[in-house]
């Protein structure tokens, strides 16, 4: 458990003061400007690699299809069609793009919040109660972590189609509610952080078991829950195989399926290049911003999983 404890301190330690205090690791290389330039140079080159595709789509989204093929991809074309393209993206087919975006928010938002709650409840129960079947459940779920999600998607489709659930919001939402990894993480975390004496104290005060979980358990587990939530949001947002298999109605598509839908029209209808690049830009920018903002939250809980895995 010592490893978990040290990881937890890393989580608890806020980032800002740490950067302010003299960092011993950083002291070692100070006063060697040559190294600084070299290292920073390497980091800049790597950053360019990560940014090139995004830069390209920013440029491409400003172009007409003619310019897209006719002018250099790394610089702007003769016409500046960004606003026309964005307008086209937002209004095409009665604003279907906005609907796709809304669906993605729905799947990822609702799915991730509920999945986190369910994983927290399950993980907490396994960590804090001794009951028969507990090890069986844990073993089963641990197996679930190792089974790739796409391998179950196809059979899940066959099952859902028998139940009449295929091609509904539920067909994508319900599988998104289960996060074996989140369950695993929550159990580990609850095990080492939720103090049994706190629970006993609450019991003596007359609090019910579910109340104890909701008031004490959830609060203490918050750092792990944030991780599970973010994990699940990204996982659902980026999912492609499951909605592809499940959904045939365009109105239910998440953004990934929708953009692919446009992209695959480009070979017959080149005007879709403008829609695709514009749509990609519109969907990349919020995500890129979100990632840049969220990365500081990310750091915390993941270590737990790492230490325990």
């Amino acid at each position, binding site marked *: 458990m010592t490893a978990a404890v040290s990881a937890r301190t890393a989580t608890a330690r806020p980032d800002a003061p740490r950067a302010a205090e003299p960092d011993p690791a950083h002291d070692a290389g100070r006063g060697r400007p040559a190294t600084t330039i070299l290292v920073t140079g390497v980091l800049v080159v790597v950053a360019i690699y990560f940014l090139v595709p995004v830069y*390209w789509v920013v440029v491409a989204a400003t172009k007409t299809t003619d310019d897209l093929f006719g002018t250099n991809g790394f610089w702007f074309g003769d016409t500046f069609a960004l606003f026309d393209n964005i307008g086209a993206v937002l209004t095409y087919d009665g604003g279907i793009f906005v609907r796709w975006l809304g669906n993605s928010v729905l799947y990822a938002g609702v799915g991730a919040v509920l999945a986190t709650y369910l994983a927290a409840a399950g993980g907490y129960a396994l960590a804090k109660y001794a009951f028969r079947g507990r090890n069986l459940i844990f073993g089963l779920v641990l197996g679930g972590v190792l089974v790739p999600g796409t391998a179950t998607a196809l059979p899940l489709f066959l099952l859902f189609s028998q139940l009449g659930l295929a091609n509904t919001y539920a067909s994508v939402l319900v599988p998104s509610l289960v996060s074996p990894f989140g369950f695993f993480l929550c159990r580990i975390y609850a095990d080492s952080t939720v103090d049994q004496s706190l629970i006993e104290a609450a019991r003596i005060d007359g609090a019910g078991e579910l109340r104890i979980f909701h008031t004490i358990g959830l609060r203490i587990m918050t750092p792990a829950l944030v991780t599970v939530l973010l994990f699940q949001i990204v996982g659902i947002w980026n999912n492609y195989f499951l909605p592809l298999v499940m959904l045939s109605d365009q109105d239910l598509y998440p953004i990934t399926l929708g953009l692919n839908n446009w992209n695959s029209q480009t070979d017959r209808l080149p005007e879709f290049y403008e829609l695709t690049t514009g749509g990609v830009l519109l969907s990349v920018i919020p995500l890129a911003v979100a990632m840049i903002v969220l990365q500081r939250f990310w750091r915390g809980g993941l270590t737990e999983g790492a230490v325990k895995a």
Partner: protein
Amino acid sequence: MTQTPQTTPTSTEGTGRATSGRVPTRRAVVNRAPWILVSPFLILFLLTFVLPIVVAIGQSFTTVTRAGLFGEEGVTSRFAWFENYRLVLADGNFVDSIWRMLLFGIVQVPVMIVAATLLALLLESASARWPGVFRATYFMPYGIPGVIATILWSFLYVPGLSPIIDVSEALFGYTPDFLGAGTVLWSIANIVTWTYTGYNMLIIVAQLKAIPSELYEAARVDGAGPWRTAVSIQLPLIRPALVLTTVFSIIGTLQLFAEPQLLQTVSPAIDSQYTPNLSAYTTAFAYNDYNLAAAQSVLIALVAFVLSFAFLKLTNRSSR
């Protein structure tokens, strides 16, 4: 809702030690509580993980035969033993796709993990300027779905659209072919690396930050340079993070689907069974052979399970 339990105690073993009437009731509640907490997750887990696997196994042992030109004279289903598995394993393209993914994994996973480790060490070293900016930049692609990342990169791969090819032709007079039979696998590897390196780096950075500063202090007193510090202090201590990222990468590799499926339209080299998942999808929805597809799905799950389990066991043993 559990504040005032009405149920009479069902377990008798507790009553003996009970000093008041409340305690056995309490005990029943405590016995019931974990099931209330765990059952929503468990039911959904059974529905979305266990049942599909059971259904898939059932389907994979079934075969459908049709009489007449189109089955208009009757369709029969029957238990087929291992016939579907035999057919799947006899299908050279499917077996090739598994080997292809193993090759992909053997090359791409280490490259990505090494790159992520190096970036993490550089960012955490004293010599890096603006580490926060770089860290955020490298992590950004993780938020871009594989589908969109593939659309983005495909524009950079396609001759005529790609500025990279234009630049290469202008500078070196060389026309790279990103979508040819020999290269497209590595073009896919590039997309995957682009997407996940920053994510893996972040996990490693988190682990590096958890290293107590006394250790660095001690190393400095011993006169260790940045290189020695990295090799003898940082690398051993970030080992758990490396294990975690590797396992997830292995599972991710076997799931590869969106990237090849999308690149198919621009690369003739990608066939309909390029990856195991693409193969299962094609078999199910292009050939309508759900039974063969189920057998393929079961095999994919099995391979992923065995590989990650083996890796975990291996690293667990040696870390003890």
